[in-house]
């Protein structure tokens, strides 16, 4: 099992969700996050006053899928979240040791 974590542009969320749904992935956790990477922040001037915009709003999507499907999911996110500009975000893939359904103690991929 793999955990896939993607940080994407907020306006791409609906596209990514729709694309994942199309390949049958509809369980995910979505968090509104703020951060900066190479895109860094920038300064905004409003009426002569400078505002530091150092943490940019992003969306984080997390989901755990079977190892067999993880590459397909990554590809789907890549295509649907890409605009080609700096700030498109990143995807991280982790190994997952175990998944347990609290209701019935079901374990492994069956619990996903």
């Amino acid at each position, binding site marked *: 099992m793999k955990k896939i974590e993607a940080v994407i542009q*907020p306006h791409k969320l609906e596209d990514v969700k729709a694309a994942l749904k199309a390949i049958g992935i509809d369980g995910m956790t979505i968090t509104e996050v703020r951060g900066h990477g190479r895109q860094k922040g920038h300064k*905004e001037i*409003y009426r*002569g*006053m400078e505002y530091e915009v150092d943490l940019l709003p992003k969306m984080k999507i997390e989901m755990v899928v079977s190892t067999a499907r993880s590459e397909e999911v990554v590809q789907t996110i890549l295509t649907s979240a890409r605009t080609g500009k700096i*700030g498109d975000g990143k995807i991280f893939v982790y190994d997952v040791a175990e998944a347990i359904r609290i209701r019935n103690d079901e374990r492994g991929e069956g619990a996903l």
Partner: protein
Amino acid sequence: MWQPEGAHAELLRRSAEVDQIVITAFQQIRPPVTAVAVGGYGRRELFPYSDVDLLLLNAAPDETKEQRELISEFLRALWDAGLRVSQSVHTVEDCLELHQGNLELTISLLDHRFLAGDRARHGRLEAELPKFLHRERPTLMDQLCKMTRSRQSKFADTIYHLEPNVKEHPGALRDLHVIRWLATLRESPADYIPETAAELLYSIRIFLHRAMGRDANLLTFDLQEAISPEPAVWMREYYRSAREIWRAANQAMEASERRDLGLFSQFRDWRGRVSNSEFTVSRERVLLREPLELERDPEYPIRLMQFLARHNLRLARDTENRLMAALGGLWLNRQPSWPSLRALLALPHAAGALRVMHETGLLTRLIPEWTRIDCLVTRDFYHQYTVDEHTLVTLESLEELRDSKDPERQKLRTLLHETAAWETLRLALLLHDMGKGGGTGEHAAESVRHATIVMERLGVPPAERENVLFLIAHHLDLSGIMNSRDLNDPSTARYMAERIGTVERLRMLTLLTWADISAVNPAAMTPWRLEQLWLTYLTGYEEFTRELHTSRIREVCFTPEVSAFVEGFPTRYLNTHSEEDIRAHYILWNENRAAGMAIRIERSEGTWRMTVITSDRPFLLASLSGTLAAFGLNILKAEAFANSHGVILDTFAFADPHRTLELNASEVDRLRDTVRRAITGKVDVRKLLSGRRKAAIAGGAQIPASVAFNNEVSETCSLIEIVAVDRPGLLYDLTQVLSSAGLNIEVVLIDTEAHKAMDVFYVTHEGATVPLAMQPDIRRKLLEVCG
């Protein structure tokens, strides 16, 4: 099945049934105590799975082992009969004492009733209890009120929970009990008890107990559905009852709470000084001096609300009752006028006054359409309140933003301080969700439909109406843009500019969006959303500033003559002027062609306007603004545009603080004449001003002056943004500096809010941007005149 009728009879029946069980067990076992029903059981309000409150009166505190055995056996018998007994054992003397931390015991005695045992012992309690209560009543009432207020605040002090607890929540059964207890303690049995509302709550609680098979009091979505096929509609009935109980409970508490003698009460008494000839303030509550005026003068209730909104006060109980009693006959022949309503909406604490209007029914009386959203439930995962409550919370959010010290919100607070039109924003918020409850899904369009009717009836003038309707129609735009559009994509900025039209509207829409999201639930406006909203605003703002110079009118569908006139003005000209304005300007233009200049001075809705059309020349704007200042007039807004024929159109909105023009018709002619001579250079504006140079800055306005150059907005033009404390003659001094430096003023937007002037100049130097080398010197001179 929920049975709306006969709930009280059902409770009586259940109580009688339990009486029978208790008495039978008592007679069989003969415990050495006297059984007294107290609490809910005592007042014969026993719900199917409620605890059975029993007071067991013993003769002396220390029973023998045998006596204790008998009491235990009696209680066991009751448990075996299926009752959940909640018993306490006390002597009569015990009951006639205040127990620290056990107010519940004393309160439960208010509803005592003899069941079995020694009648004389109970008789003693019956005889002594009233004396005891009378002696301790200030303490008891005070503690009961404290306990109630603390319970209510635990549930956010609102009745409008989408899944309410019918026992504990504000406006639920516990509040009803408090009303009755306070009436008993105050020895005024004539107090109002909302019986119909009570009956509904009884029936719901009986249903909940039966449906869940236990002492369940939470009216969940599922159970609402089990009660009615149209749960959202049915819940309105619940909220209306809860509201009635909530109000009655608060009134009862207000009448019972003890007067403090501390500092706070001295402050409250000090507030009494705001009393005027119509209203008296006592302990933060407003009383009417001439209650009969309620029936005579349609403006009187509005003045009362203005009084609340100005001083942040609430109504006294008596005032509330009188107002509600007068409602039926109110405004039958004549509605309150729009100017007085507008004044109300512009006052600092209008949200509180509108809440009072909502609670007393005054709002529905004024706007019957309000019933559409009154207690209307939105059944989704993120809304926490009914639509009416949501609407009131949006209004409160705006005031909270104004008073907030939170640095995260600083940016948005700037926008609020730049917005003069509180009344427009507030009216838009009040009406923005009016279309909900239509069930069509497209509630913004539906809200516009209702708002149009409402504003027509209230007599809102067309220009203001248009702004409010715009805000309502577009109230979901920004949240749509911030969630689904790439803010870095230039097409997003253009899309916003096209949809929204002017920076003033963008500013109001941003504030409205902030209030709307903040009022969904207390956690909805996260720092994340705040940042997104701010970035969305900036995206639009930058587009508007950019296009002010770069986007000029090219093709418009007017007659060829009018087209020739508007060609080359910034597109803002079309966005901020009606067709009627444009036609009037065109007529002036023709006048200008004949006479070399055209000047129009007029007054509309309390503000004076001057429009000047002439050919461009150096120091022109300085001469015009200087002349106005020399007449003691205070410039509020100004715009200066040039079209492609080198014709300039300057418009000034100004206040006449000394009423010079209003009281002396000849002064208008003298002003026109002086302006004419100033334009042609026949009068020295500097000399005119010399008699007026005393800076009349109102104290307390601490705004650091700022001057910012920006050469990025366009290739041929520099932008200078100036923020400073406003004073008479400021615009004259600023334009004087710019013209003296050899700059040509292309576009000007002047705005003032309170004591703050926000001036935007687009200038060129020899047809190009202002060289960097010149900028420090100009900035220094500008800052000097800003003071």
